[in-house]
């Protein structure tokens, strides 16, 4: 019994020191001088714009990666083709790769002398240091989440029900919409929540490709850094607290969805 209590104390103590205390601290520091500095920072036009850029990038990246993730999971679980291992490796790559490396890769591809950069420059389309590069970086870093959640669920589901439907004359689309999708829907939603969290919080890749122009290409996370480096701590805390509140919401959603995910 003593041993059990000891282990419990070790685990909870570690979580308190590493996770909980810092989180509580940021909420405390944000509101210690009242609501006015928070409101001032959040109503700053450049801050509003930064949140807008983050939301636009997220609103594009999440649906794109949801469709891709479901397609990918279906192909990996249900179909047989050569190069499946390679496909698996490239889907997981964004999980294991530094976001700065992702940013640099996009920087080189779409830069002035890059393979694609020259073509876009000739056609007068600004990719790097503009919204398109921010969106591309956000899509890159959040590629794996939906696929990784849906693959195990699809594996466990098996395909007996779909075969039954096929023998009864259901078309491919009918089988997908009526059987497969309803069975994997919680896994998809869980993946969407993770993808959204990753998109909202992206820093490293966006730091490289966005150009960080205040009020133009700055995202919410870059805004936090900008405020901190300019010694506007209350501004940094205000933006952070909004992002942290989103993270807490994400955790709540994850907790609600997880038990439903099992087939």
């Amino acid at each position, binding site marked *: 019994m003593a041993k059990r209590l000891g282990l419990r104390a*070790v685990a909870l103590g570690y979580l308190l020191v590493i*996770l909980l205390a810092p989180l509580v601290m940021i909420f405390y520091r944000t509101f210690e001088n009242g609501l006015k500095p928070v409101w001032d920072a959040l109503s700053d036009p450049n801050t509003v714009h930064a949140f807008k850029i983050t939301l636009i990038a997220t609103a594009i990246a999440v649906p794109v990666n949801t469709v891709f993730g479901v397609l990918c999971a279906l192909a990996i679980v249900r*179909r047989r083709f050569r190069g499946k291992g390679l496909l698996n490796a490239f889907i*997981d790559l964004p999980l294991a790769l530094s976001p700065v*490396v992702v940013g640099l890769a996009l920087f080189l591809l779409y830069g002035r002398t890059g393979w694609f950069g020259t073509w876009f420059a000739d056609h007068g389309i600004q990719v790097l240091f503009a919204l398109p590069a921010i969106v591309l970086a956000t899509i890159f870093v959040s590629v794996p989440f939906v696929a990784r959640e849906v693959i195990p669920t699809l594996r466990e589901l098996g395909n007996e029900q779909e075969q039954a439907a096929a023998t009864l004359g259901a078309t491919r689309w009918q089988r997908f919409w009526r059987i497969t999708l309803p069975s994997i829907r919680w896994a998809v939603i869980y993946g969407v929540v993770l993808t959204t969290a990753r998109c909202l*919080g992206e*820093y490293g890749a966006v730091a490289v490709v966005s150009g960080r122009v205040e009020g133009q290409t700055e995202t919410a996370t870059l805004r936090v850094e900008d405020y901190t480096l300019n010694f506007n701590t209350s501004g940094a805390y205000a933006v*952070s607290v909004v992002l942290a509140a989103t993270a807490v919401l994400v955790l709540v959603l994850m907790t609600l969805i997880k038990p439903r995910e099992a087939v």
Partner: protein
Amino acid sequence: MEASAARAPHVRPREAARAGGRASTAISVGIISTFLTVVVVLPIAALVWESHKSGADAFWQAVSNPLAVSALKLTFGAAFIVVLINIVFGTVTAWVLVRDDFPGRSIVNAVIDLPFALPTIVAGLTLLALYGPRSPIGIDVAYTRTAIVLALCFVTLPFVVRTVQPVLLELDTEMEEAARSLGARQTTVFRRIVLPNLLPGILSGAVLALARALGEIGSLVLIAGNIPGHTQVVSVYVLNQIESGDPSGAAAVAVVLLGASFVLLLAVGALRFFVTRYERG
């Protein structure tokens, strides 16, 4: 083909699965690989090409730059320390969450995922608020290597917990009870029965945490101080090289990180293969 599958009820599942036909497989695999090529593979190819276009000498020169070497050493060193911390505390936390029972356990379980949900830059700022110059508890580790380890512990916390937890849930306590009834001491039970079962899970989590720690930047920019040669991790070094107009030098060091990522992904794949070999039969 679908019709023939329908007429043959004794058809084997694998053949039935293929009844969809090769054409649709080709289309779906085509769409996926085109998307992945444009979004992931081509940028990576551009990176590798850039790092090698000036020849192997230039590559080595960029990688063996003293500041690059010290950044790489610091990053790998800190990442290994953090992985060891994670192996111990992650396993203990998973054990407590599965085998122990106390009020608020489900809340603690949910909080584990916080580092996945919280933007890394916010994580860095929160750590700075508690363990920085204005620390209310008088601990100031800002702009030191300790701060780097602390921040990396934060962002990698869920990995080992989340890979060990499901294994512990599946693990039958009967084996342990049998060992105990035959007179094995608690430490023997742990060492001979629990640990060998958990090991693949622990290792998978450790490898994922290592990959994450090697590439981390967001949580470090505000708290590490980024002093070149002292507290500048490799991701920050790469970012600095880009901003000071040396993308080729940045690309060379980035390719080292890319190589490490591929090796670690292979390790995770191998572990997964090892873990599922019984299920696959």
